[in-house]
């Protein structure tokens, strides 16, 4: 009897172990695709998910495909796939805000704004996130609403950051190109110092002064050829210093704009673009 039971157990366990793996069964394709997705191998995961969708309908998989495209930076396909998620799907609302993220990352501000407005008119549970996202992106545009309106959807901590961005945008600490030019016309190099380009300013002042003095000195000593050479050089440096000061103000302002844009982008990135956090890879 004991022998029979032992044999039965042995046979039973070995039969379980021995089941042939069907690599192409929908369940196994999905399991493998999830594994790839969680290992951030999105391209292969998408291939597998698409195979799975040919056999079964699953809106979570459609969402994951779109999300995979987004992670890969393939924005066109991401928009296409997020848009294909039906309104009765559990992922419809999340797809809406993810589409906003895609438009933002693809630098398509006009589509972003119109899509955000559409979402805000609907009963999207993420409407507060959409509004915060939209109000952050509005900081990149020229038409700012009143400060209170812009800050209203944000949390207390976020408000102080956004308020700083808002103030900066309203009164950017730009340097005037005209003032820089005029200053350099009066005192060579001073326009560059005004734009905080100190080393260039001092160099321009010394060189223009030196060549001006040499020209004057040579005229005085009647070395007219040398005097004209130095006059030409002094005039060149003088004109260059004025032009350079205007360019320096432009560069200063461009750098400020760049820093502002990067600051807002970093703020959005740190807040995950106000999109939900998914537990696909627990």
């Amino acid at each position, binding site marked *: 009897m004991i022998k029979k039971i032992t*044999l039965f157990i*042995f046979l039973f366990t070995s*039969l379980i172990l*021995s089941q042939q793996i069907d690599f192409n069964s929908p369940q196994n394709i999905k399991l*493998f695709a999830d594994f790839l997705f969680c290992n951030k191998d999105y391209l*292969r995961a998408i291939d597998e998910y698409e195979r799975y969708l040919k056999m079964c309908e699953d809106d979570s998989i459609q969402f994951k495909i779109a999300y995979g495209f987004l992670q890969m930076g393939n924005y066109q396909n991401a928009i296409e796939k997020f848009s294909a998620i039906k309104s009765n799907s559990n992922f419809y609302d999340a797809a809406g805000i993810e589409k906003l993220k895609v438009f933002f990352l693809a630098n398509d501000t006009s589509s972003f704004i119109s899509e955000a407005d559409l979402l805000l008119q609907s009963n999207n549970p993420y409407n507060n996130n959409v509004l915060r996202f939209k109000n952050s992106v509005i900081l990149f545009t020229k038409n700012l609403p009143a400060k209170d309106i812009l800050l209203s959807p944000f949390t207390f901590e976020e408000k102080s950051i956004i308020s700083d961005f808002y103030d900066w945008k309203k009164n950017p600490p730009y340097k005037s190109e005209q003032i820089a030019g005029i200053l350099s016309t009066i005192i060579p190099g001073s326009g560059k110092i005004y734009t905080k380009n100190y080393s260039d300013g001092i160099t321009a002042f010394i060189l223009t002064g030196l060549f001006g003095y040499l020209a004057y000195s040579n005229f005085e000593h009647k070395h007219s050829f040398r005097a004209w050479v130095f006059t030409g050089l002094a005039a060149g440096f003088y004109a260059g210093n004025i032009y350079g000061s205007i360019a320096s103000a432009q560069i200063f302002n461009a750098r400020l704009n760049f820093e502002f844009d990067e600051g807002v982008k970093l703020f959005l990135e740190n807040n995950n673009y106000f999109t939900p956090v998914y537990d696909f890879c627990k």
Partner: protein
Amino acid sequence: MIFVNKIFLIFLLTISSKIVAQNSLQDQFDFATNLFQQEKYFDAITEFKRLLFFDKQNQFEFKANYYIGLSYKNGGKFDEALRYFTLAEIKSTNKDEYFLAKSFQVRTNILRRTINQANKILNQLEDEETSNTKLNEIKYWRGWACIFADEWNKAGQIFSEDKLDTTLAKLCKSVNDEMYSVNFAKYSSFIIPGFGQFYTGEYVSGLISFGWNILFGYLTVNSFVDERIFDGIVIGNFLWLRFYIGNLQNAENFATQKNLLISNNALNYLQNNFNGLKP
């Protein structure tokens, strides 16, 4: 007798079912290997990853990781290749598998020109290995590491030792002989402006450089002789010095560029015409 037959039957069933399970993974392995052999690397990686995912008993762990590494390497994705060769090393079950995974880490590092890393692994392997064949292989890859580090002379010496690879040794020697000395080009131009350009075969550039330096040198010296100190300083500083320094940089650049060309031609030749083992 009947009882014995039953046992035999059960035994047969058990064995055959186990073989079927193994075959299923083996088939997947064969399928993936076939894709690899057809150079369909993207698909091969997918199928090897699938094998790894379903191989719960870790029978194919080394092979699958190794082939994924190879596929990535052949596809030019060296960072990913290194990751999988490292995994293969961790999953290796014997010394040969360990050595194979390590040697491919070296080869990938050579290809992506992280030569220090390649040498570090080679040093480690050298400390661990005792077999002559493997020590020779280590030496062989060290030679290749030198080639990719542009140290053709050192590479030639390594390949010559114990006649490791006479073809490569000859090639390295000829490339080294063909190379220009950057320091000679630069410092010879210190003494005679334009000489470095002549040395690298850039005769027109050498002549022009020589001419400018003679002209401005003459004007500078002449100004000082005539006691026109200011003119002498201005011409010497803004013209002669500018052309003199330009001549040195020019000579150095020509030698570097020519060497790069020689080196790239040699690597191109190795890639297309050398039939031996390559990284």
